[in-house]
Structures are given as structure tokens and as C-alpha cells.
């Protein structure tokens, strides 16, 4: 539609914006706001419901019944949480240069744990390890092989975890080996020590606001 072809008396109608343009835009904008306002309840209903959030509250675990060298697994927010009572021998192994030389991230530089567990034993108490038992490769649950062995489950095994899916290896502090598919150490969830025998999974010690969702890889 070239303006030269339009008769003079009609040209005024086509120039600039008209009342109809304004009303059309107004109607479309109103409809757009309406659709967005209606869409929000639908999207928000997909968020975890109140009861689901309540079920994700912190969980108290009595660790006095875990014998040295044993592990229990508790469920917190749908995830397996490993609680290991490490033997003095296992604690000593965590610091051995031979082990450290085959680990990918021995000093826990990658943010896979709260700062209060960013130490050589990756825990608050050296004898108790608390970890999310999900392989950082593709989400399988690693198997627990605490005892050193020359052959089982792998040659020169110092004690730790072996993932059944793709053979990723971790030590008893959840630190991942070099040369395995998993890229990061096992995550450490927020937890605090309530008493010498009671750990509370899901709650930070005073002064920390660590969120498990902030780790690089669960």
C-alpha cells in the first residue's frame, strides 16, 4: 500500500496511529496481563507443596549405634545419606601421601561441601563422615567397601566406595579418584552436632547458611 496511491482525503486516516491502533494494543496488553496472571498459579502449583517441604525438615540421627568401620544410610529429602564411623586406621589412611596422590581433589577445592567440612576429613568430627551417597558421574549409589584389600574390589584397595555403574572410586571421605568417570567429590549435606551421639542432618551449625543446592554437582 503506497501512500501516493491513496486519495488525499483518506491519507489522513493512514498516517500515524489511530484510535483503533490504541484500542487494539490496549486489548492485547490487557489479555497478555490476564494470561500471565492466570499462568502463575499453574506454575507455582509445580513447586514443592507445603507437606513435601515439611517432610524435608532436618532429621536427627543417633550415631552411637554405628560400630567403628560400619556405615548406615538414612533417607533425607529423597536422597541416601551415608553416615560412616571411621576407624582410627581409616582416619590415618585419609592423610597418607600414597592415597592423596591418586585423588582428583584431595583438598576439596571444588565447592562440594560446606566450609565447615572443607578439611582433610571432609566432616565436622573426624570419626564420623556424612555424605550424600550419589555418584557425581550419573547418579548411582556407590557401594561401600571399607576394608583395605590387595584385590577386592580393586587392586591395592585402601578402603572406600566403588560405584557399580561405571566404576568410579571414592575414599572414605568421599573424595573421588583420578582417572575415573566421576568428576567431583561426593557432596556433604548441611548438618550439625547436637550431642556426642546425635547428628542433625539438614541444619547448619550456628553462623553458617550452606544450601545443598549450591554444590557444583549432586
Amino acid at each position, binding site marked *: 500500500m503506497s501512500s501516493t496511491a491513496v486519495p488525499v482525503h483518506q491519507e489522513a486516516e493512514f498516517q500515524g496511529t489511530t484510535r*483503533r491502533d490504541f484500542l487494539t494494543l490496549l*486489548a492485547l496488553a490487557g489479555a497478555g496481563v490476564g494470561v500471565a496472571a492466570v499462568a502463575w*498459579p*499453574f506454575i*507455582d*502449583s*509445580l*513447586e514443592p*507443596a*507445603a*507437606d*513435601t517441604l515439611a517432610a524435608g525438615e532436618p532429621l536427627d540421627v543417633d550415631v552411637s549405634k554405628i560400630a567403628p568401620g560400619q556405615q548406615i544410610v538414612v533417607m533425607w529429602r529423597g536422597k541416601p545419606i551415608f553416615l560412616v564411623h571411621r576407624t582410627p586406621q581409616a582416619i590415618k589412611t585419609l592423610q597418607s601421601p600414597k592415597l592423596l596422590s591418586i585423588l582428583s581433589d584431595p583438598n576439596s577445592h571444588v565447592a562440594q561441601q560446606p566450609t565447615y567440612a572443607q578439611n582433610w576429613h571432609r566432616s565436622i568430627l573426624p570419626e564420623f563422615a556424612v555424605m550424600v551417597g550419589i555418584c557425581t558421574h550419573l547418579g548411582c549409589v556407590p557401594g561401600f567397601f571399607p576394608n583395605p584389600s590387595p584385590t577386592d574390589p580393586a587392586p591395592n584397595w585402601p578402603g572406600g566406595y566403588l560405584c557399580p555403574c561405571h566404576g568410579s572410586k571414592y575414599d572414605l571421605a568421599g573424595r573421588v579418584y583420578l582417572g575415573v568417570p566421576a568428576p567431583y567429590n561426593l557432596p556433604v549435606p548441611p548438618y550439625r552436632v547436637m550431642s556426642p551421639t546425635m547428628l542433625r542432618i539438614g541444619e547448619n551449625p550456628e553462623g553458617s547458611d550452606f544450601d545443598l543446592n549450591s554444590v557444583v554437582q549432586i
Partner: protein
Amino acid sequence: MAGLHKSEIQNPVLNWIDTRLPLITLMQKEYGSFPTPKNFNYFWNFGALATINLMVMIATGVFLAMNYDPSATGAFDSIQRIMRDVNYGWLLRYIHMNGATMFFAIIYIHIFRGMYYGSYKAPRELLWITGVFLFLLLMATAFLGYVLPWGQMSYWGATVITNLFSAVPLVGNWIVTLLWGGFSVADPTLNRFFALHYLLPFVITGVVFLHVVALHITGSNNPLGIDVKSEQDTVPFHPYYTAKDSVGMCVYFLIFACFVFFAPNYFGEPDNFIQANPLQTPAAIVPEWYFLPYYAILRAVPDKLMGVALMFSSILVWFILPWLDTSPVRSARFRPIYRAMMVVLVADMFLLGAVGAHHPMGIWILLGRVGTAWYFLHFCALPFIGYLEKPLPLPESISNPVLRDYQGPGGSGGGPLPAGAAAKPMEKP
């Protein structure tokens, strides 16, 4: 004949798509420039409103299903969880609940429109028949959905309705067992009802497509019930009827919102706040308002099989309506006897609704029988009315405004047309 579509779209990307899959051209043809009779009144809003209501029900239903547990032990609690714990779950559920009421209100008006203006007559018989199928599917879906909350009314409604089929000779009990999947309405019943309640809306969507395709082949009927004679009798669907439908849509959403936010349980039954109990029937079993007339017909006959047969035939008779009505005139505007009969039929439906809501005692038994008799008499009389009735003169065309002067006894018909009134076809501005 295969071949690329010659698209007239200017935008090169849209043109590329439209050449291979001419959806844009289709939409422009069927909803843009589609020639539509220019004399629609607001009764012609209700097809569009029903489509919107269907979309609202599917959207809220899909999100409700994400939090619903179709088991006899978990269903009732999962509804309470939706109401209390799920974010905006109360809103989604109240929209879905009251959406059923809105749906039936819209559909009843839509059906009344079809009957009053003779929209079922040739060549729109199949359009009408697909519509009757849609109504039956809607009733089935509504019933299945009402069972899902697993309250007392859900449970006993399901028991009563499924037992209707036991009246069928020979295979009745077998059908009931197939519906139940057990010895009574129980967990397996709820599971299959949920599966079917989720399935049927998509079947409805498919039949809606057939309904719309049939509509766009024959073109819409109109309040005068006469055929479109020329282009000047029509306006393009957009913007004229998109605008008119939008007005109706705003009113519809306002009424809908009033129920959802201010009276969400107005149509609910208190008994459905009690979990299903197979050992205790509530004192009064009442179906939802939209089933009340058929419930009254069911109870009008003191015979199990006859009652069920009458109830089903009260709707099945609509399938042959295009052939029952022998009058060549469509719109009731020009059919004095039929027009009066339609008014009485609507009053009769309200009467039957009232009967359905009351215990079958005293005067209500008589009223139920009179109402039922009249309902079927209406349809039985139609073939004869077509011959007895003397229709009023029809206007020459939709554009011809002489009609009003014609009406009344001795009316001998209006002056000449105002110059230019019917001369120029309406165009898109």
C-alpha cells in the same frame, strides 16, 4: 493431488512454512476472512465459550492430576492435600469444579439455540449429531470426574449410576462388573474411572474438530434461519465475531470468577466432605444440578428397565430430531406453534430439574410424570406440527430489513429498502 501450497504470506520464513504446511492460510480462511452471517445475536457466542471452557478444564485437570492419587485409600486425602498443601491447589480445583457447572450451563444454552433456531435441519444434520455425541461424552466425563474425590456423594453416585446398567436385559450384570472391576464400586473402579476421565476430554477435543469442520462446510445458521444469499449477507469472522465473542467471553469469565472466588461450593454437596463409606448411604442422594432432569425422568416410571430406557432415550431422541421435525422453516421466529412449544419445553426442563431435586413423594411424583410425558410428547408432536403450522412469511434475505414490517396480522410489508442498505458487502476495515 499433491503439490506445494501457493502462500500469499509476505514474511519469507512464514511463507516457507505456509508453503509446506498451510496452517496460517487455513486459520486466515476459517477464522479470519470466514464469511459469517451478519445477523448473529449473543446466542451465537456459546460455541466459542464451550471451546474455551474445554481448554480451561483440560489445563486445570492436567495440573490437578499431577497431585491426585486414584486409589480408594488415597483419593480423598490427596484432594485435601490439593486444597491445603499444594500451592494454588484450591484455585485449580475450584476452577475445575465450577468449570463443570459453567460447561453444562453453556452447553444447555448452546443446545437450546440449536433447537430454537432450527440449526439441526438440512444441511446441518451431521453437525447436530456430532453435537449430541459431544453432549453424551460431556455427561460421561462429568460423571467420571465427580467420582474421583471419593466422598460419600461420589461413592453413592457411582454406585447408583453404574447399577443403572444392570437394568439392561441379559448382559446387564456383566456390564456392571466390567465397570466395577470387582464385586462393588471400589479401588479398581476408581482407577479405571480416573483413566477414562483423563482420556475422554481428548476424545471430546477430537469430536469438537469434527463439529467445527462440519460447521465450516455448511456455514453457520442465523437467527432468521434463512440461507445466506450473497456476500452482502455476511461479514468476515474477524474482527466482527472475534470482537462479539470477546464480549461474551468477558461476561463468562466474570460469572465464572464470582463462583470460584465467592461461592466455590455453591453447587457442592456437604456429604462429599465425608470420605466414601460403603456401609452407609447418605440420607438424600442427589445428582449434580445438570443431571437433575434426567434423574427425574428415571424416577418417573415405576419400572427399573423402563425408567432407564426412558432416561437414555430422552437424549437419544435428539439424534433423530432433524428427521422428526418436518417443517421446512428453521427459525422459531417464524413458527408460532413451535415457538410456544420451545418455551414450554424449557419450562418443562426446569420443572423436571425441580422434581429431580426432591424426594419422590406426594405431588412430586405426579409432577415428575407430567413433566416426563410432556417431554416426550414434544418430540412426538414435532412431525405433525410441521404440517399443521402456518409459518410466518420469511424475509427475502438476511440483508433485507422488510421483515419487521411483515409481522403481525394483515401486515403487507414495508416500504422500499433505504438506498444502499443492502448494496455493499461489509469488508474488513
